[in-house]
């Protein structure tokens, strides 16, 4: 019963967050300087979305259009995707963002777990010092600075896309992810070039994401180091590695789950910066390109999709915690 109540609460919070996100973006849409930017296309699109009516009516039109997928068109001066619908641009760029996000998380999580073991003892060890240094480097080095240095020194290599192309790359392929599409269709040249342009963004994402996640993982482990049950487990004769695996690593992971919204927000922020600097054709790049070309709908709905990804991940992590963590489910699972 308590679990059902908690799940209901999570659903309610997710709905409120979605509503707040819509109001937030709507406020941006209202405040945008259409006339100053002389975006005739945007003005006509705004009229078609009912934005020439009173504020409340406009908001309902806006919500209706958001949910029916009428997200407007990208400005015609957009260098790569001008004239396409925002939905099409997001459909093209989102899979690449999700792909980069998924692979970087897949690589980062084992790094976090391995480096987190350094905190399983109270004394200072080399592993612990290395983990502390790793966290400090992630905090001190701005991601854009590392990206800018890499971009500068690797500019003439095939690791970076140098210029936006005039057509939609890989548009006709099913997943829009060059590596996967190249492998599926036997186009190995495309797959290998896809891997090359993927390497630097992936390395940047892995380093900064794992460093950030390690901070949270560390706090989970350090909190549980003070718990009495660890002493009991040790006094019962359990080997140290079992204590680490069964208690400390689980506590650290639970802490990561608890802070999933913050983790996702930070990782997506890294992704926006990495994609913009390295010209990786994901949603962050689409957001950046939309901003510099004054395509308001492109920018606003790219941010909307980022918001939706965060809300969904936050909702799912909340539900998983309620179903698996006795602390979050109000102790019902003990019963």
């Amino acid at each position: 019963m308590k679990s059902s109540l908690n799940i209901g609460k999570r659903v309610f919070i997710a709905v409120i967050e979605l509503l707040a996100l819509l109001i937030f973006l709507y406020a941006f849409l209202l405040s945008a300087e259409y006339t100053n930017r002389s975006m005739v296309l945007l003005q006509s699109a705004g009229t078609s979305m009912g934005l020439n009516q009173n504020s409340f009516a406009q908001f309902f039109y806006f919500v209706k259009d958001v949910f029916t997928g009428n997200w407007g068109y990208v400005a015609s001066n957009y260098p790569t995707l001008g004239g396409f619908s925002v939905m099409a641009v997001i459909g093209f760029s989102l899979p690449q963002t999700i792909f980069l996000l998924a692979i970087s998380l897949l690589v980062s999580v084992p790094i976090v777990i391995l480096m987190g073991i350094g905190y399983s003892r109270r004394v200072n060890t080399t592993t612990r010092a290395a983990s502390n240094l790793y966290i400090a480097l992630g905090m001190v080095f701005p991601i854009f600075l590392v990206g800018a240095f890499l971009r500068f020194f690797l500019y003439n290599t095939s690791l970076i896309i140098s210029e936006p192309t005039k057509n939609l790359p890989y548009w006709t392929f099913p997943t829009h992810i060059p590596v996967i599409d190249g492998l599926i269709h036997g186009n190995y040249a495309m797959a290998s070039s896809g891997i090359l342009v993927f390497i630097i963004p992936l390395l940047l994402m892995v380093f900064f994401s794992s460093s950030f996640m390690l901070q949270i993982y560390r706090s989970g482990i350090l909190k549980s180091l003070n718990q009495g049950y660890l002493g009991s487990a040790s006094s019962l004769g359990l080997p140290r590695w079992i204590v680490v695996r069964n208690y400390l690593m689980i506590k650290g992971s639970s802490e990561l789950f608890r802070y999933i919204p913050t983790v996702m927000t930070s990782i997506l922020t890294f992704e926006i910066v990495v994609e913009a600097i390295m010209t990786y054709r994901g949603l962050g790049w689409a957001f950046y390109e939309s901003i510099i070309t004054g395509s308001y709908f492109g920018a606003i709905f790219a941010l909307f999709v980022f918001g939706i990804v965060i809300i969904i991940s936050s909702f799912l992590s909340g539900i998983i915690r309620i179903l698996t963590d006795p602390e979050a489910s109000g102790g019902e699972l003990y019963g």
Partner: protein
Amino acid sequence: MSYTDKSEGEERLEAPTVTMVLRSRQATKSVKVSLANVSAISGAVITAFYLVIGLLDMVFPGYLGTSGSMSNALTAFHGSLSSPSNIVSLGGSGWYILGGTLYGLPILPVMLAAVKFDLAFSLFVVVVSSLIGLVVGLYAGFFGGIIDRILTEISNFFLQIPLIGLAIMVSYLLGFSFFDLAIATSIAWWPIFGVIVRNKARSVKRATFVASAMASGDTPTKITFRHIFPSILPDFAASVFIELGIVVQLIATVDFLNLDPAFRYMPELGNMMSWGVSSTLLGTLTWWPLVIPGLFLLGFTLGVFLLGAGLKRSIRYKTWRNDQR
């Protein structure tokens, strides 16, 4: 202020003097512990170096070689690249000790002006947001219940917004000035402090001295600011320093992405780095316009991080020493 108790034959101190002596001993010990903390000291030295650079421009406005503001000089310079006299107006040959940009600007004076700007921006954001976060966090932590719930959900909402995306939208889409951007960033930044203060306040709330204050009839405002606030101050101060570096990273990132033409020639470290990168696009691999401002930015974030982390460590050490007594 002391008197001698003849009956017992030993000198006793009046209550206020005892407190003063204890406090001075505690302060001496605190200073000793802090001085022994190498990272805190090196962080303080680095941060002080940047503060001095920032203050120099206020005390000696002409020392950077420009008669007006550096941003006006830069805009004028970039606006008329064909006129070589503008290069001279930015200073003599001594300013070129760190080299020049692709357009012939001396890096050193522009970078010193950039440090001043970055410091002013980040100090404003951190001071405003930490004050909001402090008040909200203290009340949420102390009262708990529905107030805590509402404030937590509001702060959760703000924590779920990618701040760089928000800053980019605010600065470019809404055509805001840097001051407006600083206000918008402060509004989005307060939950970081709010969460830290709230969590600490919740744990301090269970302490005996808070229960005593409540029993003696102190008002909630008095309890939060007089009793709880001093207990969370050390952690709060440490997080303020760490966030100072992160805010500088944010503004440099937004400027590096070079979104608004109006601010393209603002003396700012991220902007300077973007000029450095643009030299690559023009086919010349001159590294110094990118690397030198980058290292300066790195130095500042390293300094405030060391100071914050060092402060935390020395505070933990002092707390541990107090627990041992």
